[in-house]
């Protein structure tokens, strides 16, 4: 058996592409000047930052001056929420940074279907006359659901039109966190129809702690960080020049490769899924069934009654790094809020692995990882005295009991439970 290192957690972090690193390097040493300084050298660096802003703007179909560079997606999400005071609507499987920001507003939280997809009609019913912001991520990083952001944009536009006709002055904006999506989906703000969009360099083979918030002309952003007035006063602090230049280059590469890479990742994901299921047919794959509705390189798979946290350690010993849906989330031992929200029974959620493939992943990596996963699951099964027959029966009863996950996604939640208000 070869001793390979296989990293399958690209939703958590991506390596900086060598081309991106090369673009960044000069700004640490010879081109170190402060973009705000008055001499010609510094002006060059300022121009480089503005060129990067222009590149990013072109790639997302926006105006350069509507982009604010931040220290990562979390800050960008915070900045988006800081633009409004009033009521917000979010879905229940958003990233913690969005849920935490929403938690500081009066809000409604909409549920998602068992496949993790938000129903635009449910969003429409959750919007109140005083709602100022709707925030729905473009793609979920844990189970891979791609949200119908365009359709939700139409819902928001309809509400905006209604208010206009009714002479109500409260604004309403749509924000989407596209951090997880940018590697495989278009993030053109015009075609998405959003008013605010978050991106992260760290998820697209760029540096960590670099992100951006794009805001349409209709939105007035309010700063969270005060000081020298950089980024049009919205985000003070000397620009992260190397990071911004790297971000622009990373986004360029992502956009160039997006189509082909998405197809390649989709193929690898099917291969990985097939290899695991052929050996362990009782494993439960979650997320949307329709490939168009999920991230191509993400496989969420659960092994009932087997602790994923142990699998992670056993896999690490085989050189395979994977994510899991059960972790010490926030403070208690608990399964992720995403898995809870799609109604996944605990024994499945606690036994779930999130496998995310990336640019460096090869077929050999996938084959090796599949073998390792099957082996460590089998090891745990023999330690616990489980076999395929009892496992299959257990899964059948778990899924039967919950009525979720395996059923198709159109199980319409009843009106009383689809929305949670505060």
């Amino acid at each position, binding site marked *: 058996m070869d001793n390979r290192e296989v990293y399958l957690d690209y939703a958590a972090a991506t390596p900086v592409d060598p081309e991106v690193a090369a673009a960044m390097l000069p700004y640490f040493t010879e081109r170190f000047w402060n973009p705000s300084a008055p001499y010609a050298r510094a002006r060059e660096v300022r121009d480089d930052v503005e060129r990067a802003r222009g590149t990013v703007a072109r790639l997302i179909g926006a105006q350069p001056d509507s982009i604010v560079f931040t220290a990562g997606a979390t800050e960008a999400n915070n900045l988006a929420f800081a633009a409004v005071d009033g009521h917000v609507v979010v879905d229940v499987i958003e990233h913690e940074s969005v849920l*935490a920001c929403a938690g500081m507003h009066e809000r409604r939280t909409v549920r998602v279907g068992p496949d993790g997809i938000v129903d635009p009609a449910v969003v429409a019913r959750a919007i109140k006359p005083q709602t100022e912001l709707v925030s729905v991520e473009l793609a979920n990083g844990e189970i891979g659901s791609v949200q119908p952001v365009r359709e939700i944009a139409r819902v928001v536009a309809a509400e905006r039109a209604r208010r206009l006709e009714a002479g109500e002055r409260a604004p309403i904006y749509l924000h989407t966190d596209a951090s997880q999506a940018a590697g495989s989906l278009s993030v053109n703000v015009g075609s998405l129809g959003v008013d605010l969009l978050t991106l992260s360099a760290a998820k697209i083979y760029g540096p960590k702690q670099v992100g951006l918030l794009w805001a349409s002309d209709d939105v007035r952003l309010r700063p969270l960080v005060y000081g020298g007035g950089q980024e049009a006063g919205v985000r003070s602090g000397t620009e992260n020049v190397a990071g911004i230049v790297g971000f622009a280059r990373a986004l360029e590469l992502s956009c160039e490769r997006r189509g082909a890479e998405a197809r390649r990742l989709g193929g690898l994901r099917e291969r990985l899924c097939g290899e695991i299921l052929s050996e362990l047919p009782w494993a439960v794959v979650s997320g949307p069934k329709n490939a168009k509705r999920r991230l191509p390189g993400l496989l969420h798979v659960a092994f009932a009654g087997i602790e994923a*946290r*142990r699998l992670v*350690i*056993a896999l690490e*010993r085989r050189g395979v790094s994977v994510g899991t849906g059960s*972790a*010490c989330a*926030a*403070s*208690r*031992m608990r399964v992720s809020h995403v898995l809870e929200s799609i109604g996944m029974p605990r024994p499945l959620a606690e036994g779930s692995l999130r496998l995310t493939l990336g640019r460096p992943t090869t077929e050999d990596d996938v084959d090796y990882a599949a073998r390792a996963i099957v082996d460590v699951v089998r090891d745990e099964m023999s*330690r616990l005295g489980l076999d395929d027959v009892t496992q299959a029966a257990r899964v059948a009863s778990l899924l039967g009991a919950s009525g979720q996950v395996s059923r198709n996604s159109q199980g319409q939640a009843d009106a009383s439970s689809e929305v949670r208000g505060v």
Partner: protein
Amino acid sequence: MLRQKCEVCEVGYNAKRGARVFCGLSGGVDSALAAALLVEQGYDVTAVYMRNWSRDLPGFRCPWADDLADAERVAVTLGIDLEVWDCEAEYKATVVDYLVDAYAHGYTPNPDVMCNQTIKFGTFLERSLERGADFVATGHYGRIVRGKDGRVSLLRALDEHKDQTYFLWRVGERALSRALLPVGDIRDKAEVRRMCAERGLGVEAKPDSDGICFVGPVGIRTFLLDELERRAGDVVEWETGRVLGRHDGAFLFTVGQRKGLDLGGGPARYVVSTDVVRNVVYVTADHNSPALFCDELRLTDEHWISGEAPADGRYLVRTRHAGELRGAVLELGAAAPVLRFDKPVRRVAPGQSAVIYDGVCCLGGGIVE
């Protein structure tokens, strides 16, 4: 002296193979090796991570995640179950509240002593026995001796530098009879790390975690200031009664303390005593001031491992973890036990433990008045 000789051959934990052991795993080196040794010796081991205290706030990364992950790594490597037991309520009631209350009254307590008595050899032991355990095990450095007469006693660890019997004096013989301390027989800590590395347990490089078990990265001062109100008071020179400066709460200071006195320069000064009622801290600049020494200690709340008080006489005494063992005469008397030292010793803060040994055998001790 009496029981020690006949038991030399019995040192260790010669329980039967296949006996069911619940082993506390903290994520540290010592408990990891304890669990590994028990597995190798053929015990049926279940690992337990005790979640005692988490000053966790929503939105903050939980402080025990890394320790739990390490414990999990060890359990997976050994192929044993790991359970997470929530002991937070008991810990809060018996250790944290005790600690805060003691400080508020001007004492300097040992939370580890309470934790061992009420949690590790209290709640953990009881719950384990209820679950059908024959024994519990921990990574403590100490040795439990099971005599032919059925009596059980506690000896200092072979590694005298790491010996932790100072923290175990309030554990009774009955609890010890159900306890295994597998690393107490190992000669030194380097050996423990080497043995962990050999077994691929993945924790061998972790630093030692002596000291207050729960406050963790938060210092005791920060912790106390969350629980008790600051109160301005005078820092008074012991010899002269002169006011040298101000402090922010006498409960924050302890005998012998040098740091944290903000007296605006001058010589280093040491806390001689504190008066939490009048909120005064007495200090001296003389490191050899007689006020910093004592030749006897009065004890309260004494506890004897065997359940019976020892006879008056000469013993060895330790007044801090890994501190020097000093000769002293114990007089039980009618009121409170008194320890008279052969030579004056540095004063011990009220609330600390004085632990009494007969040779290598830990007899018990008391809380310094």
